[in-house]
């Protein structure tokens, strides 16, 4: 009996304000950094946070996952996330081998880095219901950063799709994390992805 998001029990408890996000990427692509930056942005908005990777011997290139929790109340949970409200997929090649929508709540949002539109993508992956957003994160990152590091682009898209964090907090968190020049570029990436993200 997983206490899934959206059930009555879940809502009438302090858990109501708890948001859970799962990130899919490959070792070295920055999925963990995306999870951390979202948490560091949320803390700037006075929220309680948690961010953790699913740790294994993942080597560069191997599929891995990272998680973020954000809440108005202190977070006591210290276990995996099984019913995320938001899922971000940094690398479209994962769609072939990893079931990225597994456990996504009924009112959840799936955000995928791909050139396809949400409608085209939905045809390709079996996603019933839920909301689907896409963003060409690789192109945006390559254009602005010169490298296909898609974590900050995905942050912009997730912010747009979920509305759980505002851009100013993300920009501040990025500013604190990267050296000046790189921070400015990443902020540009976030803004661009925020604009480019498309829903159905």
């Amino acid at each position, binding site marked *: 009996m997983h206490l899934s998001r959206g059930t009555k029990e879940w809502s009438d408890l302090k858990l109501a304000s708890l948001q859970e996000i799962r990130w899919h990427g*490959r070792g070295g692509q920055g999925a963990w950094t995306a999870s951390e930056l979202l948490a560091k942005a949320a803390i700037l908005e006075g929220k309680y946070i948690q961010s953790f990777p699913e740790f294994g011997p993942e080597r*560069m*290139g*191997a599929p891995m996952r990272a998680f973020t929790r954000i809440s108005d109340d202190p977070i006591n949970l210290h276990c995996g996330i099984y019913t995320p409200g938001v899922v971000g997929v940094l690398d479209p*090649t994962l769609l*072939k*081998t990893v079931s990225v929508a597994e456990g996504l709540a009924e009112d959840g949002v799936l955000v995928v880095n791909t050139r396809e539109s949400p409608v085209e993508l939905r045809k390709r992956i079996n996603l019933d219901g839920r909301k689907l957003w896409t963003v060409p994160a690789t192109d945006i990152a390559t254009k602005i950063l010169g490298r*296909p590091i898609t974590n900050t682009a995905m942050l912009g898209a997730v912010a747009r799709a979920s509305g759980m964090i505002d851009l100013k907090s993300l920009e501040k968190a990025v500013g604190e994390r990267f050296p000046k020049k790189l921070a400015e570029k990443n902020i540009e990436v976030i803004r661009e992805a925020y604009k480019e993200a498309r829903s159905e």
Partner: protein
Amino acid sequence: MTTEKKGWKEIPIAGVCWRPTTDYLTGDWRTFKPVRDKEKCNRCLMCHVFCPDGAITWNSETEDIGFNYDYCKGCGICKNECPQEAIEMVLE
């Protein structure tokens, strides 16, 4: 490729492994893949010797090499070391 996980009554004792890594395809880790130009290649086998994943195989009958894309991680060592510059790394 990851099948249903077994319970403790089904697995061998002492954590002894029972599947070869050849069952685990690492090919989807790569973003670039090596493509060989047959004319330029003189089968010197430098690529075979320096491949970390044993993904370049030798076929004694055809006396030629083959790229096993099930395992190639796209590191690009073969391209870098090929004396004939017969290998290009192509975006998947």
